């Protein structure tokens, strides 16, 4: 187990290095930050002075090595736009994204697995077929459209939920949370649902398929014939065996939700990392974009490792040699 984790960690570092290198190559071809740094009316000479001041006149490999050396010490450079450390800028937005992703995955997991179990018990009932069709719509509808539709229905016509933003937040010093106020929760509902909807549908279908397979197994029949209460048969004997792929999926998707909530955050003007990323891309703020991508890679890598470890606990048959 220990050797396995060490190996995974080393792999992770290699992946991070590769990601940072690719980012750097992309940036060489994606515009010149000096143009905006020096201002609209800077002369060509003044631009060169600014280029020197930011070390952008150095050859590519020098810039890259310097970046890696600094990054190893937790210094990802300063944003070209806000002129404050890029990492701080992103971490400031992290609580918003984390809360959104946690809520989304919570909604997706509880509703998805719950409905999945429900549907698997009577797969041919009309109501359950309706749910399955609904989940197909969920999977095929782009997030962008879902978000706009939800805003139009709940914020503009019914006027029961706010269309954008985080509402009242409470600053705990290190973490600005929207979980503690009513307005914060109200603001969270639409974006969390939008973000988690795809995952909800996937988990629903996954649970249903797994449950239908497991429910036909001999040991379930045994459990029924022993006269165990349905709650025990379904949740303890059947569902537990379905959970392995479901938990894997949830874990992997959680990382993606955090890293790629860009569309949802943009539609709802959610002040999270995805929103920052998009703004930074528009403004060509390279340090922020690189830091964000590195951070996203780090989150996804760590979650993959955690899921692998969780496996071993869920199913003692799995061993890492």
């Amino acid at each position, binding site marked *: 187990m220990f050797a396995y984790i060490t190996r995974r960690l080393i792999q992770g570092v290699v992946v991070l290095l590769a990601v940072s290198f690719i980012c750097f190559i992309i940036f060489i071809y*994606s*515009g*010149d930050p000096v*143009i*905006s*740094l*020096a*201002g*609209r*009316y*800077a*002369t*060509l*000479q*003044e*631009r060169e*002075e*600014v280029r020197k*001041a*930011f070390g952008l006149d150095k050859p590519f490999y020098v810039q890259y090595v310097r970046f890696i050396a600094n990054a190893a010490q937790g210094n990802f450079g300063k944003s070209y*736009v*806000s*002129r*404050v*450390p890029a990492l701080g*800028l992103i971490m*400031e*937005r992290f609580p918003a994204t984390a809360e959104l992703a946690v809520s989304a995955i919570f909604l997706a997991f509880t509703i998805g697995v719950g409905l999945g179990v429900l549907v698997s018990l009577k797969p041919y009932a009309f109501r359950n077929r309706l749910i399955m069709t609904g989940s197909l719509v969920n999977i095929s509808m782009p997030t962008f459209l879902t978000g*706009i539709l939800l*805003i139009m229905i709940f*914020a*503009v016509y019914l006027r029961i939920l*706010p*269309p*954008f*933003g*985080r509402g*009242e*937040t*409470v600053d*705990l010093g290190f973490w*600005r949370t929207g979980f*503690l*106020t*009513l*307005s914060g929760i109200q603001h969270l509902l639409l974006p969390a649902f939008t973000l988690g909807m795809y995952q909800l549908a996937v988990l629903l279908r996954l649970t249903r398929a797994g449950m239908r397979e497991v429910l036909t197994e001999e040991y379930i029949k045994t459990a029924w014939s022993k006269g165990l209460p349905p709650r025990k048969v379904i949740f303890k004997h059947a569902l537990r065996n379905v959970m392995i792929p479901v938990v894997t999926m949830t874990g992997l998707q959680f990382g993606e939700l955090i890293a790629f909530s860009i569309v949802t955050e*943009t*539609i*709802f*003007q959610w*002040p*999270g990392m995805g*929103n*920052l990323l*998009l*703004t930074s*891309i*528009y*403004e*060509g703020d390279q340090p922020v974009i690189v830091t964000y991508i590195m951070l996203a890679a780090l989150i996804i890598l760590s979650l993959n490792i955690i899921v692998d470890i969780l496996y071993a606990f869920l199913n003692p048959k799995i061993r890492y040699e």
Partner: protein
Amino acid sequence: MKKLFLSFLTVTVMATLLGLTGQAVWASSIVVAVDTPPRTMNPHGSDADANLSVMANFFEGLLQRKAPTGELLPALAVRYEHPDLLTWKFYLRKGVKFHNGNPFTAADVKFSFERLGNPDVSEFINTGKSFASIETPDDYTVVVKTKDPIPWFANNMHQIYIMDKESTEARDPGEVEVKPIGTGAYKFVEWVKGSYLKMVANEDYWEGAPPIKNVELRPITESSTRFAALVSGQADIVSGIPVELYEKIVENPKLEIIKRPARRSIFLAIGNKPGSPLADFRVRKAMYMAINEGEIIEKIMRGHASPAAQIPDPPTIGYNPDIKRLPYDPEMAKKLLKEAGYENGFEVTLSGPNDRYVKDEKIAEAVAKYLAKVGIKAKLDVKPKSIFFPQVAKGELEFYLIGWFDGTFDMGRTYFKLAHTRDQEKGFGGFNGAAYSNAALDKLLQSTADMVNPPDREKTLQDLNKMAMVDQIIWIPLHYQEDLYAIQKGKGIKFQPRPDRWIVFKEISKQ
């Protein structure tokens, strides 16, 4: 665990109570939703109009511009003199205090001007490097000498904001980037990036306290969400209304549209590399006449634009009312091309941004189609502005769509930047993206560099403009954009848009 829960409960209750007491204060308040989030609270950190607009509420320049005309008026300076070509003497206003209580003096002006040249904190490098000396004979006089004559120097002073020397030097540089201390009509309260910027009236403001006491600025980048915020009543004023949603707002009885012609003109810049078809005046004229601008305004801009015959707008020094648009005449265009020897057309690459101006990509597409009708094959090459503008700055393009307006209301600076032959030494032509070059134009332009007498200057710039637009066709003008805002009717909001698209809250009132 129980303790933790209790402390959470206390925090929640306190937050709710704070929210309740907050209600009373918000009686004279306003929520403004804008399309571009503020980038920084450092007044010199961004020269984008979206940021300068926000900073205008916390900070002030020596001069200011007011709605609705953009007239240049005194602010931190009560008056100024221009004794010779290089010297500018400003007499400062007495008794003005910064938000932290520090008095405003000449030392602050000197400090702020010197700060402009530091690339770590400023995007106004050009202005910062133009000073030869800054002297402060007494606490309320500043004498500035520039290295070269800058006729538009004073015209720029409304966006060169003055910071407090003492607190800016004493505070951590990171804090200066996020917590502004100025002399403006509003004091900073809180900035949660991506969410809101809150400010409160400066009751000691030298012009008198502003009528609206609390302002909340909310950036909403997605236009349909901004529309939802407006329709659901969560924002009082919204800027950047997309032309597609115009009708919807007009139909809504609770909302009101406010529009004004924008200063920015959209135009096509054409290179004249010797030997290329574009160097032939007849070809340039043919391209101009092949474009159906009336249809672009009607179909693409949905009527929210007005045709332009030149780049500057009427209030700009150098605007020439005698310049008229060439008529749309594809037959004539074909004839001109035939005369020039391009009966079978030629190929050209049309570049442009796709995320900068209203419908920029669609306009470029339309232009390519009009040109195809007279036989010119325009290859379309539109891209994000973060890639496009550096190409313009490097002068790598041959034919491109761009928009411009000059914050100084003087065409001179713009022409040096956009039309003068690219010259690394002198720093001219930095945004002359197709490397256009014309010796006669350069000469006339250089003669205006030390021309300060207003009537002479205006006359020469008008001649220059005519030379560029009529005699040479260095650009094909398309249209002036229209700025669209929407406000909640029935809340008694009085709002006059400004030519520079800034939203200055002291100019807004509410009954």
